């Protein structure tokens, strides 16, 4: 068994996967150190789900290494699995169980089980303990699932699209509880979501996954500080092209925009050389979502 004593919670090196002839990635690399909250962002179809499946241990990669808490993800030992909390897309839970039964079911599996954390979360919903999970709303179910993960007291949480099916209220509730739980410290979270905006409060680092397995990983603060959007004017119909300085060009909005990690002057100098006549007009304010779209493009 390939195993490494490491201070990395997640280690992905040279990972490749294909379905038949369709290659999802051939050389994927990133790491997540312990104690970080990391969001995996990427557009549909770049292989986020595949990566999550590999990380959770439900898909054996075609090649390369994917270690979670030091062990190959598809060969995790039982004790290691006990240290990992998984949230499945759609807040998967045993719907035939009641609030009380599901807690009683999970408790004996986990040595560090914290029943109080579960009931602290679940009792706020004001439902009787014999309420069946199958009869709950998606939001209520998300509370139960989160409560179970907290009670498990895992070192690493992999949360796959926690926001799916939740309204704004439950989304915020979910994040608030998660945030409070993380304040206890030393927890690693690997999260994906379609609601990029929510990440702002939660995450330390972002990983942008692009088609073909290109990865851009950086602290969220860096990303927010460095990634910029400029509107520009162009004399003819000639538009600047994507390159190592200009990360993206958006001609679809009211005014044409381009995106870059570089300061204004560097970008203008670059434009003067590469695309003479194009003038940056003003730097546009961006939300995280805008920045995400700016980086990855709309299509």
């Amino acid at each position, binding site marked *: 068994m390939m195993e490494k004593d490491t201070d990395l919670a997640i280690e992905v090196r040279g990972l490749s996967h294909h379905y038949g002839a369709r290659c999802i990635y051939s050389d994927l690399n990133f790491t997540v150190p312990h104690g970080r909250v990391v969001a995996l962002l990427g557009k549909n179809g770049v292989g986020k789900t595949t990566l999550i499946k590999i990380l959770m241990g439900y898909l054996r990669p075609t090649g390369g290494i994917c270690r979670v808490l030091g062990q190959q993800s598809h060969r995790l030992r039982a004790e290691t699995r006990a240290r990992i909390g998984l949230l499945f897309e759609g807040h*998967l*839970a*045993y719907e035939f*169980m009641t609030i009380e*039964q599901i807690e009683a079911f*999970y408790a*004996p599996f*986990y040595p560090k089980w914290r029943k109080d954390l579960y009931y602290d979360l679940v009792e706020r919903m004001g439902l009787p303990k014999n309420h069946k999970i199958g009869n709950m709303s998606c939001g209520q179910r998300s509370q139960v699932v989160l409560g179970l993960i907290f009670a498990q007291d895992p070192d690493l949480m992999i949360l796959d699209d926690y926001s799916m099916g939740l309204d704004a209220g439950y989304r915020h509730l979910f994040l608030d509880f998660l945030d409070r739980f993380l304040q206890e410290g030393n927890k690693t979270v690997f999260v994906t979501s379609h609601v990029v905006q929510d990440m702002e409060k939660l995450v330390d680092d972002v990983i942008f996954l692009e088609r073909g397995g290109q990865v851009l990983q950086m602290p969220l603060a860096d990303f927010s500080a460095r990634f910029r959007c400029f509107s520009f004017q162009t004399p003819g119909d000639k538009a600047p092209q994507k390159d190592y300085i200009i990360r993206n060009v958006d001609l679809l909005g009211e005014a044409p925009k381009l995106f870059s990690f570089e300061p204004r002057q560097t970008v203008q100098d670059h434009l003067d050389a590469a695309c003479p006549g194009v003038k940056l007009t003003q730097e546009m304010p961006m939300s995280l979502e805008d920045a995400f779209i700016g980086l990855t493009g709309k299509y």
Partner: protein
Amino acid sequence: MIKSIFLKEWLKLKRVWLLVLLLNLCCMAYLLIVIRHQFQIEHSEMIWYWSFELRRLLYDEIKYIPLLTGLVIAIAQYLPEMINHRFRLSLHLPLQAHLQVLIWIGFGALMGGVIALIDMASLYLIIKGWFPTEAAASALLTAAPWFLAGWVSYFGATLVMVEPHVPQRLVYLLMSLAFLALLYLEKGYQEYDHALPVMILLALLMAPAIILPVHRYRHRS
């Protein structure tokens, strides 16, 4: 942990199990009525002659009940796991997946076995009500392959449901059907007496066979 697993299986199964038990009891009650009716409209010595000499089976109404019971128990246990791939929840538990699934299978086979035992006891008592003990014992041996079919259908349905790949699913389906067809070839009483031990062994081999589809489900390979 083990208790927890049993608890979960019981929660999935309890309603269906009670329902299936009721169905089985109804079938046995029906058998009782049928046999009583026979003895009311025919002379007892003629019915005994048909049964012992002509080898007519008066109790083959219950033939397919164990098969159906096994199938329903398997669906009750594994459908909730397979919907939305909820099986992943169980696979993440800090317990060997094999062990866990073998416990599930053991539990299901046991719960089916309890119903089969109740059926067998009922069959024995019903036949004994109108026939000498020899005939009641013979009825149990004759019905044994039908009861075995309950396990075969249960194990078979489990294999088919857990297996993630469609072609292999078909293979397991074919295998189960071929096995089931083997258990209904009787033309008279006790014809499986010699073959039954081997058939029981083979049926039991289908229980550990479940580990392969579980392994494939886990690794999708």
